[in-house]
């Protein structure tokens, strides 16, 4: 069965975009090389062990978080096999086994095998123990990663799961935005680390983690404490067995079905109907607010944005040199609107048909403005609260005008960019009814995210410039004058980008529907930048489909025998 599952997984992978995978392969290879370089370059034996232990932990954490953030076509879902007459626990272990043969897990093994380096000095037996330990650690890490992913998949049904997934995305994006601050601080300490090793308390913590056990075992065997060494190995075996037993239970296909009996009415169903204006805009705003509150995939977007701000704050606070910008974390939360809401139409699935069949003169405007307004109403208050708290806590009075100018500018521009990208770069994910994993609500969003992020940053430049001028060139009231620029910047971004979207959608709601429902775009009416973006965002999916067709044709041809008989 394992062989069949592995070949099924490889088939699924062959149908996923090649470019992305190749980028991953290059990055992974570089990371493996730097891991080995770090361990080899360490000056003393004890330091070498510490460096190896530290990198192994890094690889472990990366492997556990990676699949959550980048799960794609290669993941076999247990639900695919529900109807087959297979033992559910065996199927679970088979699915787990199918995770091991992959490029990423190969890199992980190579990186963990760096545990051999410190063992070289201790003799061949220690080296053998290190290799065995690394293999066991590999099984432990991959099984753990699969368990975490599965737990999150089912956790998309609970609020806690959404919070955890949101925190993970926040960590990733926050690390991208502010990671360089920590890296910059770390870079100053790398030579120090390679020469002197880690502080003792850090070493003590790392030693407890399973990724450190292989090198502990090799060390013990190499220094004559064979019993202790074997005990470390045995501990790894036991941990692997425990995780495998858990996997046999947790990776089974879920047979509970989607709908548990409701115990309470959904959020926002008792009030609100009366509060909203009795117009198409009121209709869309009410619908959007409820969808944001109730849909775990949308909630995940909001949480990710919030946690990105928090992570930004923490990273900058601990970086030392850059701690001064920590009070501006609320601005990052507002900025994240552009990513949280950049696939609104794709997230709704084919539901855009409702706006098409009910089209009236004000439908498109109401749809665009309602979506913008909802996301601003949901993000601006928490961003403002975080800003106020952080400015007060860090006693950074200088930040008040920055926050007061930046929040309206970012919220206005980001909501405009988000709805524009949602319409022009629509990316249909899995149908809303079939979603299970945290990444199911959109397709390949790489280009869309870049356009949304850089577009927002570019269009809030006037506010940034006004603030700089206010601080540098004007007297004390200078920064406060920038607040007016920020408000105007935000209002214009909200208004003009929304109007641009309305203009684009006025005749193209059926185009958006066709792109979602049929995965193709045969309306080539859009010109200029919007036309380019529309074409480019569609191209990734078209390419994938063409590749699939070519593959199918090639297979059909292969099936034809040389004599021409089918």
């Amino acid at each position, binding site marked *: 069965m394992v062989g069949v599952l592995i070949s099924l997984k490889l088939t699924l992978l062959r149908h996923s975009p090649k470019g992305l995978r190749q980028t991953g392969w290059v990055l992974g290879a570089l990371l493996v090389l730097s891991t080995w370089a770090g361990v080899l370059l360490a000056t003393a034996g004890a330091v070498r062990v510490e460096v190896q232990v530290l990198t192994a932990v890094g690889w472990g954490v990366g492997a556990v978080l990676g699949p959550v953030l980048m799960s794609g076509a290669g993941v076999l879902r247990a639900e695919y096999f529900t109807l087959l007459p297979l033992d559910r626990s065996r199927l679970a272990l088979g699915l787990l086994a199918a995770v091991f043969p992959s490029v990423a897990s190969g890199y992980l093994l190579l990186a963990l095998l760096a545990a051999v380096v410190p063992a070289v000095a201790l003799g061949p037996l220690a080296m053998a123990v290190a290799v065995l330990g690394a293999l066991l650690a590999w099984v432990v890490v991959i099984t753990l990663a699969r368990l975490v992913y599965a737990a999150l998949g089912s956790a998309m049904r609970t609020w806690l799961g959404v919070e955890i997934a949101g925190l993970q995305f926040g960590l990733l994006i926050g690390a991208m935005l502010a990671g360089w601050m920590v890296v910059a601080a770390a870079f100053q300490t790398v030579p120090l680390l390679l020469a002197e090793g880690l502080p003792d308390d850090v070493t003590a913590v790392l030693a407890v983690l399973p990724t450190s056990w292989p090198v502990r075992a090799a060390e013990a065997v190499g220094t004559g404490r064979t019993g202790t060494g074997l005990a470390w190995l045995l501990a790894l075996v036991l941990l692997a067995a425990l995780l495998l037993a858990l996997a046999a239970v947790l990776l089974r296909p879920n047979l509970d079905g989607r709908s548990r009996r409701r115990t309470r009415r959904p959020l926002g169903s008792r009030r609100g109907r009366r509060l909203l204006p009795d117009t198409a805009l009121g*209709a869309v705003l009410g619908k959007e607010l*409820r969808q944001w509150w109730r849909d775990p995939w949308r909630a995940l977007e909001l949480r990710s944005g919030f946690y990105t701000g928090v992570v930004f704050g923490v990273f900058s606070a601990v970086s030392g040199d850059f701690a001064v910008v920590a009070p501006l974390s609320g601005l990052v939360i507002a900025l994240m609107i552009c990513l949280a809401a950049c696939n609104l139409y794709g997230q709704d699935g084919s539901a855009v048909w409702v706006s098409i069949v*009910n*089209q*009236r003169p004000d439908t498109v405007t109401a749809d665009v403005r309602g979506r913008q307004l909802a996301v601003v109403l949901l993000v601006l208050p928490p961003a403002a609260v975080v800003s106020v708290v952080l400015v007060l806590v860090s006693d950074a009075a200088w930040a008040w005008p920055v926050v007061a100018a930046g929040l309206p500018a970012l919220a206005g521009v980001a909501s405009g960019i988000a709805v524009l990208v949602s319409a022009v770069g629509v990316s249909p994910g899995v149908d809303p009814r079939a979603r299970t994993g945290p990444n199911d609500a959109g397709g390949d969003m790489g280009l869309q995210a870049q356009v949304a992020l850089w577009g927002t940053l570019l269009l809030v430049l006037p506010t940034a410039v006004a603030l700089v001028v206010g601080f540098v060139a004007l007297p004390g009231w200078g920064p406060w004058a920038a607040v007016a620029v920020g408000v105007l910047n935000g209002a214009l971004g909200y208004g003009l980008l929304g109007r641009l979207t309305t203009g684009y959608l006025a005749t193209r709601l*059926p185009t958006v529907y066709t792109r979602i429902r049929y995965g193709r775009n045969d309306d080539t009416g859009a010109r200029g930048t919007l036309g380019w973006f529309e074409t480019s965002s569609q191209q990734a999916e078209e390419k994938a489909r063409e590749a699939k067709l070519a593959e199918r044709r090639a297979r059909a041809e292969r099936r034809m025998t040389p004599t021409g008989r089918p």
Partner: protein
Amino acid sequence: MTQTETTSPALELRGLRRQFGDKVAVDDIDLVVPRGSFFGLVGPNGAGKTTSLSMAVGLLRPTAGRAMVLGTDVWADPIGAKTALGVLPDGLALPERLTGGELLDYWGRLRGMPRAVVEDRAAELLRILELDEAERLGTVVLEYSTGMRKKIGLATALLHSPRVLVLDEPYEAVDPVSARVLTSILRRFVAAGGSVVMSSHVMSLVEQLCDRVAIIARGQVLAAGTLAEVRGAGTLEDRFVSLVGERRLEEEDLTWLGS
């Protein structure tokens, strides 16, 4: 009301064509649905029924041809045409996290209907289609069964009291009791002067309900007219099979089954 609006057919498709790349899904079809008729569109899987209806209601842009609702071109004057249309598509998403009542409220406001009218009609539709219990519990559309989804879809199609109903597989997965209610609703709608276009796989259902039918296969209309004209002396199913072609199970096929 203009002259064309009072005399033109409920739905008229002229040379309607749709290609997906090289594949022709709908091949220049012409179809006229007279006012006040209960029109059945039948065809095998993949015949082009859903594609044709999607183009007829303004969802999918045709490669060529026109679609007119009560004389108004759906693609030239979409807002005018859609005012008179009620649509139930097959298998599409809805705002999944709304309850049935909230969906109807959203729908009514989008349509610019007065709040009191929406509230009264929504309550009535939910009661008649037996979705009121789910509404009381706060069940959202995502948690509905397939049959319940059809029923809430029908409720949305009826809410604004359209003059032409276009329904894609309205009876699919609907239980027999609800199916009877649905039939009564549609018959009353037609008796009051409305027109219904409905697609279905189930020949007996179409035979029982519709006064006019069209058989469509491989993107083409193979026969169209009154029920009597199309089925001739036999049943609709006989006529359908003779037009679409029968696939017989030979003696040597699937002999392993049940062995």
